């Protein structure tokens, strides 16, 4: 494969010498952005580590209230959606836009599934009063660290869920562009970048699932 800037002159910004530099820059920018996302979650992971260290019993008991079956299903859903995105990128590079659209649609469907299951879980916790901090009023379990677990549970899954929503938005936009047949061997950057974002969401969930549901 070689760069063919002339084939897509409109995509080359004036300040870049050629397409390959421009795409390299875009990918590097995305990676740096992902690192800020990781650091954003790092705060919650730190709080989690600290309070788990301080209140091991409270956290263990509280995590028994989490709905493991739904969590596990969501894990499978997200990992599979990562596969579909990876395949979408693969076909975008080959210029097979129809396959890209299909795979992205499946991915978005997985995203919807994830959010629905998450919503069901939230609903159960809400009904039972298993809520963060001062809102916690679940009669079945009390003690030091319990409401802290739910504060972190809601913050971490909430922030993650927000990212899933943003990711679904990004993928819909990319799918729309794929529908117009924009991607090919010379141009697949938007698919790749939004794919990176989706994989990061998966990557964070891989840690959230055992920490919040299983330990």
């Amino acid at each position, binding site marked *: 494969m070689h760069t063919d800037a002339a084939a897509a002159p409109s995509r080359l910004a004036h300040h870049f010498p050629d397409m390959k530099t421009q795409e390299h820059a875009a990918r590097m920018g995305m990676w740096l952005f992902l690192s800020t996302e990781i650091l954003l979650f790092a705060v919650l992971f730190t709080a989690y580590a600290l309070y788990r260290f301080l209140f091991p019993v409270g956290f263990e008991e509280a995590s028994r209230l989490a709905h493991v079956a739904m969590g596990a299903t969501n894990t499978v859903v997200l990992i599979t959606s990562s596969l579909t995105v990876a395949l979408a990128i693969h076909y975008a590079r080959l210029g097979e836009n129809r396959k890209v659209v299909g795979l992205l649609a499946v991915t978005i469907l997985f995203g919807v599934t994830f959010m629905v299951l998450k919503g069901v879980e939230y609903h159960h916790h809400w009904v039972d009063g298993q809520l963060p901090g001062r809102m916690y*009023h679940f009669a079945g*379990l009390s003690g030091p660290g319990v409401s802290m677990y739910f504060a972190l549970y809601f913050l971490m899954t909430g922030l993650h869920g927000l990212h899933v929503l943003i990711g679904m938005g990004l993928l819909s936009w990319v799918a729309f562009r794929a529908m117009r047949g924009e991607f090919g061997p010379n141009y697949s950057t938007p698919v790749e970048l939004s794919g990176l974002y989706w994989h990061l969401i998966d990557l964070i969930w891989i840690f959230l699932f055992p920490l919040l549901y299983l330990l």
Partner: protein
Amino acid sequence: MNQLNEFFRQLLFLPTQASQWSRELDYLHYFVFVTAMLGAWTTLATATVFVFRYRRKTAEQSTPIVDPKPIHEVVFIGLPLVLFLAYFAVGYPQYVRLQTPPKGAMDVYVQGKKWMWKFAFPGGPNSTDVLRVPAGRPVRLLLTSRDVIHSFYVPALRMKQDALPGRYTQIWFNADRPGRYPIFCAEYCGLGHSSMLGELVVMPAEEWDVWMEQQRRGSQPLAQDGQPTAAEEPDLRGSLVDQGRRIAAVQGCFKCHTVDGTQHIGPTWLDLSGRTVKLEGGKTVVADEAYLTRSMMEPNAEIVAGYKDKAVMPTYQGKLSAPDAAAITEFIKSLRTDAPTAEPQKGPIYVPVTGK
């Protein structure tokens, strides 16, 4: 040695040294000061010499390329590193010593709250703002706070420790020079941060023993506030407001009245002065100086609405002189806030979650 110490202490505007630890800390301070000054001025003098020696002669003068040899950078790195690590090697053990109380140290519980210091000896007595300790004996402070973070700071001891709400931190000292030293709050805690002053009274050990003996003789030493010794002159420093605060603390007013708007056994003093107060029985009265003084002398004559069952305040007739009462009134008048919401502050409550 002593003169040298005194010379540097005054040169650097440092307060009295009231403990051996503070003296040793100051020696490190002098060492850091002298070496840092030498290093700094040597560097700056070198730069200045270069500025005068290498002035530009023509606008586009050429200069040689000068690159460092490895030895240059080794020296540039090595010299400060050795010096900085030397500072640390002296300073860190000192810090560890301050954080490790010796066995047999006397415990004192310190509670910061907006905006005063409360002290409690195990077995009594308690006191507000004034801590009396014996000279030459190690004292461990266990600090906590009722609301936000405060920091217990005694410049004369060069010692500071934050008081955290809901938990304890510790620090210890061994003051060896009798005297009265100010206590500051060093962690910003709101409106009264800068008036959260206290006093550390270091008494000769025998005197302190006698004083303690007297304090514990009462029927309820745990509930009792420490009183000043008879020989002590009243502290007349500061404005009338400061004095009023001190007198209120000694008289135990803060056991029932708060100054930060929190409701307690008695009505809060914050924004009290000038306010129209509703009384039991429906009457109202403006809280002016006369009302405030009346309330001290005949507290049960005009009971504030809602406090009927809690009307436990004793009369201070005979306990408070007229100037003392005036000083307290002034202090109450100084307590104002223009807080944008009228709702009084609810401090955090320290009851565990019971999950009901």
